[in-house]
């Protein structure tokens, strides 16, 4: 075959999801984990499987169910966001990310992948809501887990912007390069917080990103994406807390 391999583009998924109500999109998004759980369960029912493999499949079922539940829980939280009371407080992002990594490690290990934290500074504080911020990073990490290639690691990065006034939490994946067209589409979707398809991850309706975009806005922050030669970084920018400077 020629060097034009994989150059073609198709907007089929856009035609499928474009403009559909979010309920339909949510239903589609949940199909993937449910279908996997169903296939694994049917195979287990069949019975002709070694004990080790049974354990392996049961583990996959529980981890996949947890991911599906996370999405439904995020969805519920998102719908109730306007009426919800939540506090914005100073949060140590390093500590939060360490907790998240601890929780995500079983899922990543089951996929033979690693999730790591890279941070240049330990003593940072941002203004946010712990629950919402946690959901954002978990969502980015789930997304990265799907997209990372082979045994590539996923990195959660903490960085500062605007002379330390903004703190950026990013999740970097190492997957297939995102084409320029896809990137433009993705960026515009993130900017308008739309529920329409995000072409960089066609298997995803973009619902997750739409939801976390709402979470970020509720914390006076915003989400974005940076394209790399070998993957992408999804990030959330939040205001730094001035508390440390008062000490």
């Amino acid at each position, binding site marked *: *075959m*020629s060097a*034009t*391999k*994989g*150059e*073609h*583009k*198709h907007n*089929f*998924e856009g035609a*499928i999801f474009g403009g559909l109500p979010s309920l339909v999109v949510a239903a*589609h998004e949940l*199909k*993937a984990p*449910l*279908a*996997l759980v169903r*296939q*694994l369960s*049917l*195979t287990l029912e*069949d019975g*002709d499987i070694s004990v080790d493999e049974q354990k392996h499949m049961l583990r*996959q079922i529980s981890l*996949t169910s947890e991911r599906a539940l996370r999405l439904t829980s995020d969805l519920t939280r998102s719908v109730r966001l306007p009426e919800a009371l939540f506090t914005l407080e100073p949060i140590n992002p390093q500590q939060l990310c360490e907790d998240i990594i601890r929780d995500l490690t079983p899922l990543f290990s089951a*996929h033979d992948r690693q999730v790591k934290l890279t941070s240049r500074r330990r003593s940072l504080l941002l203004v946010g809501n712990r629950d919402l911020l946690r959901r954002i990073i978990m969502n980015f990490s789930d997304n990265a887990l*799907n*997209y990372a*290639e082979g045994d590539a690691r996923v990195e959660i990065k903490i960085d500062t912007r605007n002379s330390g006034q903004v703190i950026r939490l990013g999740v970097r994946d190492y*997957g*297939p390069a*995102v*084409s320029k067209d896809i990137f433009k589409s993705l960026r515009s979707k993130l900017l308008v917080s739309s529920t329409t398809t995000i072409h960089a*991850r*066609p*298997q995803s309706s973009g619902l997750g990103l739409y939801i976390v975009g709402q979470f970020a806005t509720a914390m006076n922050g915003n989400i974005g994406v940076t394209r790399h030669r070998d993957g992408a970084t999804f990030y959330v920018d939040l205001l730094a807390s001035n508390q440390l400077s008062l000490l």
Partner: protein
Amino acid sequence: MNKKSVLIVEDDKWLAEQYARVLKSAGYEPTISLHALAAIEVVDDVHPDAIILDVLLAGSTAFALIHELQTYEDTGKIPIILCTHLAGELSLENLKPYGVRRIIDKSVMVPDDLVLAVKSVLL
């Protein structure tokens, strides 16, 4: 007799492994590609007898792969089985000219459906 090889193009790794498990126990030799770009490389190496293809893939869609396969005489003849949640949105008649021989609805399929579909396209 040589086992028939089946290329599974599915970006959900665990689902791909599940398909491979089912096909292996039915006597086929499955190979997994997690996205379309990798699949194009694998087609050259493995020369699969059939391809099981998800539609919404990471990176580029199944249709990018189908277009690419159709560009070459040898790869254009490989029967394709679409295994997707979008089965209800697709028409087999419309896709037949592109090598698609079966469409399986992921949401309602049972593991044996995969084996039956592969058997039928390899007749």
